[in-house]
């Protein structure tokens, strides 16, 4: 290479890539001027580096610390906080809406029973065993029926709902249909009872003291039978929790 003073500066600062470094290293072997420039660059750089550090002006640090505490209004945070709060409030309001809960439970009922195998965490046809399993997880459940008509208890688990909560979900299976029992894990605006249809399923929401129990099935007759079977159980449950 021919003399390139800028490259020599980069070389002196070890800032060139491997190929350029090798080229300059070879060049300075034969070029005393460029070798001298490398020396001069490094010497000046060392002199600049050894310039004394300056003292901070009195009070500057304290002024910065003080000013950084008195921050201007955080506009950026507010811009996000308001819509976020609105979404949260709307979400909380919506999840207390009985028709939304009916839709949410029906969605979960269909999801669980469309899976092979059923995603139960406790497998038992024994109401006692299912209640004990829930008790171990910290949920007190009413004594659920062992069978209603041809529908038999098969198991249970906690299911994630669209309302961002986990609901105890008990599974019943018959030859051609299924029924789910839920305990809704959050507040619902419901006086006593809601009978409705959601997504092609029949749904009941029943208020028992502070809790709301949900029944979901594909056939209205199954759900009706379950409601009748559950009435005495729920009454006893309510009396006990009182």
């Amino acid at each position, binding site marked *: 290479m021919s003399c390139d*003073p*800028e*490259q*020599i*500066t*980069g070389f002196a*600062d070890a*800032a060139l890539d491997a190929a350029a470094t090798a080229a300059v290293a070879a060049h300075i072997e034969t070029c005393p001027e460029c070798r001298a420039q490398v020396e*001069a*660059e490094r010497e*000046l*750089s060392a*002199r*600049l*580096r050894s*310039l*004394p*550090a*300056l*003292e*901070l*002006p009195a009070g*500057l*640090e304290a*002024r*910065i610390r003080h*000013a*950084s505490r008195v*921050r201007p209004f955080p506009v950026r945070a507010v811009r996000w906080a308001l819509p976020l709060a609105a979404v949260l409030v709307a979400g909380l309001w919506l999840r207390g809406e009985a028709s939304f809960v009916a839709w949410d439970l029906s969605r979960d009922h269909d999801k669980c029973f469309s899976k092979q195998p059923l995603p139960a965490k406790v497998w038992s046809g024994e109401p006692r065993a299912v209640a004990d399993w829930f008790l171990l997880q910290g949920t007190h459940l009413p004594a659920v029926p062992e069978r209603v008509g041809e529908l038999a208890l098969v198991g249970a688990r906690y299911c994630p709902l669209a309302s961002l909560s986990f609901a105890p979900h008990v599974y019943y299976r018959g030859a051609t249909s299924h029924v789910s029992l839920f305990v809704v894990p959050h507040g619902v605006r419901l006086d006593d009872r809601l009978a409705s249809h959601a997504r092609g399923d029949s749904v009941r929401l029943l208020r028992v003291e502070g809790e709301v129990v949900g029944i979901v099935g594909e056939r209205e007759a199954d759900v009706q039978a379950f409601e009748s079977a559950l009435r005495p159980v729920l009454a006893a449950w309510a009396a006990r929790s009182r």
Partner: protein
Amino acid sequence: MLPQMRSLFGAAYRMTGNAHDAEDLVQETFLRAYRALDRFESGSNARAWLHTILQRVRTDAFRRKQRRPDTVELLGEGPEVAPPQDALASGREDLERALAALPDVFRTAVVLRDVQELSYAEIAATLGVPVGTVMSRIHRGRSLLREALTRRPS
């Protein structure tokens, strides 16, 4: 933070040649840095990051000054303020004076490289220019410094 503040003040002083402007620069830089702390990538060079902010503060101040010409000079050619007392005492006044007399772009590049010890890549990112430009500015700045120093040997 105190060592960073001292180091940044030293650089700001040598870039502006004026303690008052340097103080304003450092204060504004740190306030912006505190506000943008969530955008600092841990593991990267805090000094380079602070210098990036400092350059932005200088640019903003320069634009303000252009709109209102009566405000204090932040970017200038050779500042005429005397170098700091301790530098005089330690006999480095020639170097300080020659540095202060450099045109702004070269002085900034040399200060970032030789006083602040940033890499070429960090300086390029800080100033928003290609690495080749950084090399050329450092080269030019050091050449001018050497010329000034040989004219007035210490």
